[in-house]
């Protein structure tokens, strides 16, 4: 037990000795979380709208008013001709173009339907589609206001996130990603560095067993991870105001098996690479990138081809995201999330076991 404490002290001392590491460890996650929490938004707003009004009646002007009154659109230009509109779309200065043909008002007051041309920039699929949807909805509302109603009305009821604010969904995701990257990187780099410098050999001469060595090396980074998690969580709760609807205890408890996975991965990486440059590439491309892109953080897993969906079962971040979002947004507890917790625990034990095996084989 005492040997463990000694290893812990040594690791913490080493950490403290490199002055550049400390701000990276503690400030960087908070800053990144703050910045990226704001940026990771799928709420499409202020879509650049250009209008070509060939009718120039009160009715057509009212229509344009309707569209620009909300925050969904930002009127960037009003042009005289279709060509002008085309140019704006091509240069990207407009994402949606609305052309109101001459005779629009006349058609409508005669009881005929008034057709308007909506052009969306499909190159920016998100803004383009969103803009199209907003415009179509606004036009439908205008139609209803004129007294023409559909026979069957669809009434939406949105659960968990009634205002469809993407912040509550994305910010916990950013928290998870930052936590994962930091803990994995630290562990991997620290261990590989020892090996490169050669101090690993020296540690082997000590009366420490490999198991003790591993635990002793991982524990300080687990502690650092916990501190980072707490500070980042505070930012999420108090700065972003993301509501925590589920039990806080469950959140904390289920973060531990996730950290087990990430620390284990860090250890595994260190056993797989001989130089720090290799470790970096490995960490970056094989372990961090897939988790960023395939965990369901920004791209829904259900949209992926089947083979990828199968693969995501091996990605710890996938489960942790379900846990985080479940506790924050849905307010569910262990009765729903126990499966994910168990999966994380299982993955963590497996990864650590594999890493330990490789570690021991390399020592021999």
């Amino acid at each position, binding site marked *: 037990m005492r040997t463990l404490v000694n290893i812990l002290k040594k690791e913490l001392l080493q950490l403290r000795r*490199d002055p550049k590491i400390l701000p990276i460890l503690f400030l960087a996650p908070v800053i*990144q979380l703050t910045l990226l929490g*704001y940026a*990771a*938004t799928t709420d499409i*707003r202020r*879509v650049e709208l250009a209008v070509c009004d060939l009718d120039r009646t009160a009715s057509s002007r009212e*229509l344009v008013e309707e569209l620009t009154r909300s925050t969904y659109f*930002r009127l960037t230009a009003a042009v005289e001709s279709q060509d002008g509109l085309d140019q704006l779309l*091509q240069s990207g200065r407009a994402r949606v173009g609305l052309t109101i043909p001459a005779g629009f008002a006349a*058609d*409508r007051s005669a009881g005929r339907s*008034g057709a308007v*041309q909506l*052009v*969306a*920039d*499909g190159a920016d699929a*998100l803004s*383009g589609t969103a803009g*199209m*949807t907003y415009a179509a*909805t606004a*036009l*439908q509302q205008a139609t209803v206001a*004129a*007294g*023409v109603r*559909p*026979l*069957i*009305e*669809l*009434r*939406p009821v*949105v*659960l*968990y996130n009634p205002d*469809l604010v*993407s912040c509550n969904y994305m910010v916990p995701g950013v928290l998870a990603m930052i936590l994962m*990257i930091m803990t994995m*990187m630290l562990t991997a*780099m620290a261990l590989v560095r020892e090996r490169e410098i050669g101090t690993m050999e020296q540690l082997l001469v000590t009366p420490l067993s490999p198991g003790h060595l591993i635990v002793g090396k991982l524990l300080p980074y687990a502690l650092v991870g916990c501190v980072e998690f707490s500070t980042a969580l505070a930012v999420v709760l108090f700065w972003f105001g993301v509501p925590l609807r589920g039990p806080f205890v469950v959140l904390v408890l289920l973060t531990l098996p996730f950290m087990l996975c990430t620390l284990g991965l860090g250890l595994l990486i260190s056993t797989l690479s001989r130089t*720090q*440059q*290799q470790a*970096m590439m490995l960490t*970056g*491309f094989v372990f961090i*990138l897939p988790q960023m*892109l*395939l965990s369901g953080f*920004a791209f*829904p897993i259900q*949209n*992926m*081809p089947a083979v*990828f969906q199968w693969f995501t079962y091996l990605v710890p971040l996938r489960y942790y995201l379900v846990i985080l979002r479940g506790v924050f*947004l*849905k307010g569910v507890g262990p009765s729903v999330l126990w499966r994910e917790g168990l999966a994380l625990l299982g993955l963590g034990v497996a990864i650590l076991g594999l890493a330990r095996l490789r570690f021991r084989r390399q020592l021999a």
Partner: protein
Amino acid sequence: MLRRTFAIAVKELLQLRRDLRTALTLIVMPVLLLFVYGYALSFDVQHIRLAVVDHDGTQASRDAAQAFLRSGYFDLIAQGQDERMLDPLFDRGAAQAALVVPFRYASDLSAGRATTLQFVLDGSDSQTATTILGYARQIAASLSPLVDVGAASGPIVPVPLVWYNPDLSSTRFLVPGLLAFILMVSSVIATALAVVREKERGTMESLRATPLVAVELLLGKTLPYLVVGFVSAGGALLVAHLLFDVPVRGSLFWLAAVTLLFLAVGLAWGVLVSTIADSQQVAFQLALLSSMLPTMILSGFIFPISSMPAFLQWLTRIVPARYYLVALRGIVLKGAGPSVWWPEMASLGVFGALLVAIATARTVRSL
């Protein structure tokens, strides 16, 4: 000056050849990654898990449910007559949406009275939810005719048209962004260790004895990586074109030119990182942190810049991929010429020069 720069480039190339694993990784990785993730990443929502609660139990209500299922977007995962079955389904994530048909739906319809269909949605992922709602609205609209309830005027009918990407496949939009992301990360990582390695090994001292100037050292070190990066970028673009239907509507020459500029800026970023860090460990972390997350989230790859708060839009100006994406998407998807994107490329050029200047200043100080 050129001869000395070239000499350093050759030295770096030799060192690169010795670490074959790294060299291969640098070339093959971007292509492989584009291949893999180009297939995986999509915003096109399918197989939406739908539950149906039918209070009416008539032919008409069944028709309504069928209309949803026939659209090809929805999968039926549960059916019943009690709304209370929905809560646990949504909590577990087993259901994403639910259609609730009210009692007297059929009789209201046949009598010409307005009726409502309730559509319950899991709103957690607002983007997917919005897409699903869009589908549902379309389907509901196709179910019912418009009824003139004492109209003051005729309806407004939008005629939609989508340019550049008519089937709105998110892949065509995402793949260029993915390419920019992959190239940026690999460029920064490639060079981040370049100078630090010399510092750590102590060979920096030996370089001090040579007639080298700081600029020559930095340029020489990055030249091999520029070539390597360009080759892999070419491979990745080929994959994008052949496998993901990403067109190349603009000029190949300009495409190559802007890509070269972008790679150079990415490498310069890596070099700058390497002059700030004193150990490979810190260099690595700084490189990864400063390239991966910001490029993924702030470059316009996934999240539109125009939707971000103003102060963040300002911040995206220091993300090189942001500028590259405007030109890349413009050239590839819209066939846009330099007249459209030259401001972005000019900014990128200036930014790159700035990075090189700072890196040189720092290296001079240490030399």
